[in-house]
């Protein structure tokens, strides 16, 4: 049994729950895995610390809560401060680099993305969570690009698909450019050419 645990945090209103929902949907519907999403929030509708947890597995998920996540996505400082310590020692940290200033640890793969700025460049800061989602999808490769993109398209309000898919692509491409295979390939091509 392989089980991957993910926690996503941010402020209420930042789209934390929707981004968790889309990851879960991509895993459960598009990719045919078992994916259980749990959300926790305060009595306030906006602005309070919000968190969603996902357990993704090849077999049935019984215990729905997570212990030490394999992946931690932080979109606010408050959320980062609250949950950073539970991340596995070798777990993957993903953060909104203009909002969260993490203490990076050796042996802990860490990836920052200016998701709010990228969303603003698309004209709507509200799609920050989908930019982040594209970035998370590219970092983790937990499902294929097409599966996650399909889940975005199926989950966002009708009429907003184009904007949200552009946001998803912006996040994915940022990873490729800053951390991904494209960067590696470019470097490898340069060195083998030399």
């Amino acid at each position: 049994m392989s089980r991957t645990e993910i926690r996503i945090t941010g402020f209420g209103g930042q789209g934390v729950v929707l981004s968790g929902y889309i990851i879960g949907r991509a895993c459960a519907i598009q990719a045919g895995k078992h994916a259980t999403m749990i959300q926790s929030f305060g009595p306030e509708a906006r602005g309070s610390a919000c968190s969603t947890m996902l357990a993704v597995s090849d077999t049935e998920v019984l215990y729905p809560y997570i212990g030490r996540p394999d992946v931690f996505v932080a979109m606010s400082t408050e959320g980062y401060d609250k949950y950073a310590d539970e991340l596995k020692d070798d777990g993957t940290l993903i953060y909104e680099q203009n909002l969260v200033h993490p203490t990076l640890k050796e042996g802990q793969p860490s990836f920052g993305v200016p998701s709010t700025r990228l969303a603003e460049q698309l004209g709507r800061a509200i799609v920050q969570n989908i930019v982040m989602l594209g970035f998370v999808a590219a970092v983790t490769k937990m499902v294929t690009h097409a599966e996650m993109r399909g889940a975005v398209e199926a989950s966002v309000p009708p009429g907003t698909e184009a904007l949200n898919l552009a946001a998803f692509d912006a996040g994915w491409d940022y990873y490729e450019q800053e951390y991904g295979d494209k960067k590696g390939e470019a470097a490898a091509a340069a060195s083998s050419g030399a």
Partner: protein
Amino acid sequence: MKADPAGVLTGAHYLDGDFACGEGAMAAGCRFTAGYPITPSTEVVERISRRFPMMGGTFVQMEDELASMAAVVGASWTGTKSFTVTSGPGFSLMMENIGLAVMMETPCVVVNVQRGGPSTGLPTMTGQADMMQARWGSHGDYELIAMSPQSPQEAFDLTIDAFNLAELYRVPVLFMMDECVGHMTEKVVIPPADEIEIVPRKLTKSKPGDFEPYRANGQMVPEFARAGDGYRFHTTGLTHDERGYPEMSAECQDKLVRRLMDKINGNADKIVRFEEEDTDGADVVVLSYGITARVAREGIDLAREKGVKVGVIRLIVVWPFPEKRIRELAGTVKAIVVPEINYGQMVLEVERCAAGRCASVCVPHGGGGVHDPSDICDAIMGAVK
């Protein structure tokens, strides 16, 4: 009969328990909902209120939970399948009219997405502490049916069953979810409408002059005439005779209330529903329900790794309680271990049925989360010592 396709969202979805419950209600043919918003149940009616206009359903946001339950009872008397949705504080307010529904033999469903209590308690966090309130919350002697789903898929499937049982026995069915299942999102497969079996209202075929609304004719459940169908119509919360008219006598009380109880108790074998696994030769049986049944599986696996033979009972229908089976098991195991998110409610029923023939072990949790599986394992290990 088969479900009306208008209410059935066939396909594979990624839904939380609340949404799945709402879809189950619409698939079951529910077309009237009255409610007052309360966390963590509001998503059920959010879903309903968006989708009802597409199938001719009516949702009314009422001024409070007393009125909500009253409206549901009234709507059901027009022949429309009806339900309401609430959580702890609202469930308390609904108790009087749930009793009215029992006395008037009104088919309806009440969903309680349980949160931590008492009072307003933990609005956004889970609990299972209303289980005895479901059984005893309204005054007087009565029997009803209560169910508990362990997943969004079951929230869909069992909501349909809840509506069907309400029609079969003309009784309120209480759908006792917990916040964890209500707010948990998983894959939910909704079958085609022609694969969903629906129990319609059992309308009388008597001529208007011959019909008496509470004459059971040797059956335990009387036939139904809708308000406005042209039949002489009287129904009341007062003790009543077969015509529905108040009659204040010990004889009438005995005849009526005995039938109300017998129609559930006498059919308990058909209504009771639970899953059983590995109880043959078990040292200990773990009995649980709702989200705790899933969490318990992890604790059971830990105990099995240590060599204990552990059987499993998962309640699906919680009331009526599977008395017969628990009495049998009590004679064959050392202990029945009952984890639940309260300080010991269903364990009391286990203890009553076991009657001292095996230990009944409560594994409490005050609410606001679920058990640590190792606590359940420790309770199992303690019980076999």
